[in-house]
């Protein structure tokens, strides 16, 4: 990026707004820390999580952030791996967002541990068979590679390295998202999770969520700097987002149809698709309608010429993404394990019954902490360094003409 680049708000009288934003983010983070120390003292007894719903709201936020983090890097990949200039101009912001969200998501996972003070144990005792530990290695590598990649983008002397590192980041990112999806796919015992489709599905979800987050952040940055994004560039990006949304919807349909095909999963599918109460609502109204169909309609409507429409569509995708995580993670646990297929089960340990879950403020605070961390990192970095995507429209002309 050139030396005179815009950093968020620098040289304009937006300092006050900047500090207000920081304070807001800081306040949420304080709440998170308060929740963390409270739980550390009293145990998870204060939360809505129990021996039936062992992963709750914090994991919904955490997994969304992690999945979106690897997807947001897509923008940079298209720029460096496939040589598209429109996306190349956006590579630094994409790398920054990837790092920020990854830090946020992992922080939530750590804050929710029963024994967070043993983090060092987690970092020094690897069980290499565990897909979880494998994820840890992928995440560490992710930080290193994306960090280096960001350097090559920001320092001209290193720029010859940006392509190979970009390709490495792209491949690493695919592996990482596969591994994240596999966390659920490897849980063989649960009707809701035991599908090889989880890994590829998570890659698609990550493309969609990452693209949506990127477009939201980009819109806000442009607005802040009173810049109008070129209509053709906006059109390109919104089309890509639409393709990702459509593909995610398609994959979701395939997953549920395959599940229906195996007789054993019928009960589970009936639960999620028809009788699951909050999960059924979250699936149809949240994930499918708000997070998929509606954004698609918006993006293909004549209104999509307006940046505001695209902004709303992207926000909806993010909302739908959280609903999807809720259905996948919590809905998957709410449905009871079937120890004896063909038998009705009951016990003092809640066998054979749908497990209720009501999240508390503590879980919400832990989860929001991840967003706050990602938000703070992004806001500070964007103000201090030049991350604003700037397009040299003349140089872009051939690419934009080609469509």
């Amino acid at each position, binding site marked *: 990026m050139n030396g005179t680049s815009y950093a968020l708000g620098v040289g304009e009288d937006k300092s006050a707004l900047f500090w207000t934003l920081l304070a807001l983010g800081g306040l949420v983070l304080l709440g998170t820390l308060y929740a963390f120390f409270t739980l550390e003292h009293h145990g998870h007894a204060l939360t809505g999580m129990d021996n039936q719903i*062992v992963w709750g709201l914090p994991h919904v936020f955490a997994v969304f952030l992690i999945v979106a983090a690897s997807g947001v890097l897509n923008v940079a990949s298209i720029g460096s791996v496939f040589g598209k200039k429109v996306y190349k101009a956006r590579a630094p912001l994409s790398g920054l967002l990837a790092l920020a969200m990854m830090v946020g998501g992992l922080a939530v996972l750590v804050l929710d541990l*029963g024994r967070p003070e043993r983090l060092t144990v987690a970092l020094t005792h690897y069980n290499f068979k*565990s897909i979880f530990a494998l994820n840890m290695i992928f995440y560490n590598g992710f930080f290193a590679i994306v960090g280096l990649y960001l350097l090559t983008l920001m320092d001209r002397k290193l720029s010859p390295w940006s392509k190979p590192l970009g390709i490495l980041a792209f491949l690493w990112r695919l592996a990482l998202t596969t591994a994240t999806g596999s966390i659920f796919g490897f849980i063989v015992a649960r009707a809701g999770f035991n599908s090889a489709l989880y890994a590829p599905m998570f890659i698609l979800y990550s493309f969609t969520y990452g693209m949506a987050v990127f477009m939201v952040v980009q819109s806000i940055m442009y607005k802040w700097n009173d810049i109008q994004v070129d209509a053709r560039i906006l059109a390109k990006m919104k089309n890509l987002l639409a393709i990702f949304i459509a593909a995610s919807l398609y994959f979701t349909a395939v997953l549920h149809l395959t599940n229906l095909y195996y007789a054993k999963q019928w009960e589970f599918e009936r639960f999620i698709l028809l009788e699951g109460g909050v999960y059924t609502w979250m699936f149809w109204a949240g994930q499918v309608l708000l997070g998929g169909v509606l954004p698609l309609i918006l993006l293909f409507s004549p209104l999509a010429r307006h940046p505001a429409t695209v902004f709303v569509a992207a926000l909806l995708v993010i909302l739908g993404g959280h609903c999807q995580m809720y259905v996948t993670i919590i809905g998957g646990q709410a449905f009871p394990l079937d120890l004896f297929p063909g038998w009705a089960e009951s016990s003092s340990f809640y066998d054979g019954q749908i497990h209720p879950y009501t999240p508390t403020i503590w879980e919400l605070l832990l989860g929001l902490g991840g967003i706050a961390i990602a938000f703070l990192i992004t806001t500070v970095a964007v103000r201090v360094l030049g991350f604003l995507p700037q397009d040299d429209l003349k140089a872009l002309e051939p690419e934009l003409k080609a469509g």
Partner: protein
Amino acid sequence: MKEATNLNEERRELLKAGALVAGSTLAPGVLLIGVAQARAPEEPASDRVRWGMVIDVNKCADGCNACVTACNEENGLSGATGPQDAQWIRKLHIRNLSTGVEISLPMLCQHCEHPPCVDVCPTGASMKRADGIVLVDRHTCIGCRYCMMACPYKARSFVHEPLTDQNPEVPRGKGCVESCTFCVQKVDRGENTTACVEACNAAGHKAMIFGDLKDPNSEIAQILKHHKTTEVRADLGLNTGVRYQGI
């Protein structure tokens, strides 16, 4: 025996590759009975032994809770049954959906040969001893609860609250995951039995038998050899150490 083990390894790999494995085709018990050597009480855990349990559901009395009470007592559990309370062993009531037949049985950690909890645990806190007992190392468990997500038997509990009044022999702690240990403290003392089995015998039901699966002369090995027993979720190919008779 060797062949059987290999076969099982192979099944495991298939499973990991995401393929669905059809129900166990090997005769029950064949996998379990190994070389004919049990260990002396003073020796450390050895792989010449594999501890296991057979539960005869026909002898298990509906409404009897002796095993559960004994377990709570032995291991210092409160016995409370709220959604956040720990339960290492529970009485499960099952009713066949087509015939309507009803069975009452104790459900506990099945001490699998290939435990999914051990596979997924990021720190290695979930582990299987040489003698087949599956345990959680209290000092390396970070409380991530992935093992609870992975266990097909819902055998694990998370400690949600600070604990007081613990049995010094059975250390437990807030923020860690725990489950049935086959009363490892008793086994290591050479008692070679568990609190639940003792209680079941004392109540006169004799529905549970604990013993060395690898010792062909042991009562448990004899039962496995001569009677039909069932693994719960045999389709998962975990080769459980707990078997049920009469289902």
